[in-house]
């Protein structure tokens, strides 16, 4: 029994050191985390950041240039672009996070099946190959054209477009792990199948999936904005960065600020997520880090 408390800190120590080490070696990851934290705070605290109702229409004050009262100007309906941009962060973050979590969960499920069941593998991977040859944005567009515009449907559409790639990744990880000596040892010692899956396979998929998850999050944010921008995404009554830019489209030569500010916020958010992803990748997979 005495060994238990002794080994526990030993196991925890390298991982804490690893994180600190990674942060020191990748200052860009800290920048990414700080930016991301700022944007998450902005989204949560939106009502207290000097914003007014993002949907409040005020025809008298339409198309005002950025000024002290209207930091980012007003759009063609007289809505405050600053308030709309701040609230718009909510949609991007929710969509990014939800798509990342859902597509990883679904992809993990299919990936484990295809990695272990030969018959399911041949069928499912054929389907996934087909789905992967449809460019993701077009796939999402097709789904959105047939459903009502809502955030849930946007999340579902982007998730469906992302699942094949996650399935591929999990499958390749599982196929490599199956041949590893520690898994063979577990099989030989009669460990039951579900325990092998939970104790030996799943923990080893965490690192690559975490990295993949951040990239999915970044690309989902861009896809949501693109869908909203072309009128196939978040419904117009919810301000999202893509929506705001779509509304500024017809007037961009007069009212550049309606497009510029949400565009900058979107780029910074995606950049932050990508920086975190690159940092995680370097920290979790040193072999890959050296090459990329």
């Amino acid at each position: 029994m005495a060994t238990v408390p002794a080994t526990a800190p030993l196991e925890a120590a390298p991982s804490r050191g690893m994180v600190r080490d990674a942060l020191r070696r990748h200052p860009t990851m800290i920048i990414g985390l700080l930016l991301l934290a700022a944007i998450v705070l902005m989204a949560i605290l939106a009502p207290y950041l000097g914003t007014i109702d993002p949907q409040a229409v005020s025809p008298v004050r339409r198309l005002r240039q950025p000024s002290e009262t209207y930091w980012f100007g007003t759009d063609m309906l007289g809505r405050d672009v600053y308030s709309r941009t701040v609230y718009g962060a909510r949609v991007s973050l929710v969509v990014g996070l939800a798509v990342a979590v859902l597509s990883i969960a679904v992809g993990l499920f299919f990936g484990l099946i295809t990695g272990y069941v030969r018959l399911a593998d041949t069928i499912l991977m054929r389907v996934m190959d087909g789905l992967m040859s449809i460019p993701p944005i077009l796939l999402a567009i097709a789904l959105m054209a047939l459903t009502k515009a809502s955030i849930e449907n946007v999340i579902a559409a982007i998730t469906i477009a992302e699942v094949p790639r996650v399935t591929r990744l999990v499958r390749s990880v599982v196929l490599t792990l199956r041949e590893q000596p520690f898994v063979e040892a577990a099989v030989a010692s009669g460990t039951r199948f579900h325990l092998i899956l939970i104790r030996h396979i799943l923990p080893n998929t965490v690192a690559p999936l975490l990295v993949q998850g951040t990239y999915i999050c970044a690309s989902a944010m861009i896809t949501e904005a693109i869908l909203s921008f072309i009128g196939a995404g978040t419904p117009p009554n919810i301000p999202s960065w893509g929506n705001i830019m779509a509304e500024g489209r017809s007037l961009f030569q007069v009212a550049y600020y309606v497009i510029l500010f949400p565009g900058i916020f979107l780029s910074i958010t995606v950049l932050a997520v990508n920086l975190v992803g690159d940092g995680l990748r370097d920290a979790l997979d040193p072999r890959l880090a050296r090459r990329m």
Partner: protein
Amino acid sequence: MFAYIVRRLLATIPVMGVVAIFVFSLLYLTPGDPAIIIAGDYATADDIAKIREKLGLDRPFLVRFGEWLWSILRGDLGISIFTNLPVSRLIGQRIEPTVALTVTTLIVAVSLSVPLGVLAAWKAGRWLDRAVMGFSVLGFSVPIFVLAYLLIFGFSIGLEILPVQGYVSIREGFWPFLERLILPSVALGITYMALIARITRASMLEVLSQDYIRTAQAKGLATDKVLIGHALKNAAVPIITVIGIGIALLISGVVVTETVFAIPGIGRLTVDAILRRDYPVIQGVILLFSAAYVLINLAVDISYTFLDPRIRY
């Protein structure tokens, strides 16, 4: 070799089959009645019934799928709900600007990003490498349409050296044609360039650490000969692969780029179809783009044998 090409061509059939089944069954799989959603909020019961008949939703799934597949195989992509014109004709009218835009982007992106990646690998860890890698992180982060507007604000409205929007066919003069494609190509190509530059650098780094590179340098071969003749040639397979896979980025990006720059191509056709919920058009566009993607990647696979004599089929 010939047998291999035939075998690979046959292997694309199940892939395209999955695409066809998927885009077709979406009409049946999506929750709710697609006829009601396509008809819109102000539709009468009569309108909805008409759309249901046009889409064949009133007949059994398998019968309808059989008919649809048969007509696709004969090159008939169905009839647009909104314009009542054949989808294949609508696509035919719009294909030229899209091909012009994607081919220009492809040429510009590859001819810039591969040398950038090679230079970054050669100067690994130096400022040039950092600059290229920094550019690639930015390229992944700035969405196409944001960059597109930044370019328009800068070059068209600010400096007034390039036209804001529009498309002119190459038949009406080469410069007017090219002039209007510069900004769209840069915007469309940025993520693609970032991807290619990254992979080129990674693949080059791998090759540059090999013994035969040191041998080449030791025998006094000029740096450019080592980099291009020895290193790039051996690093080519992953680079060509990613050029092929990245075509998906271009195809997806076309939809947005054409919207921002008012180019009357297939992307614009798709966006108009979404606004009118003209599903047969969307279906046709997806089939066309997926087929293009599959065939390009088939060509990429076959090109491996020319690039790397060790790969034999």
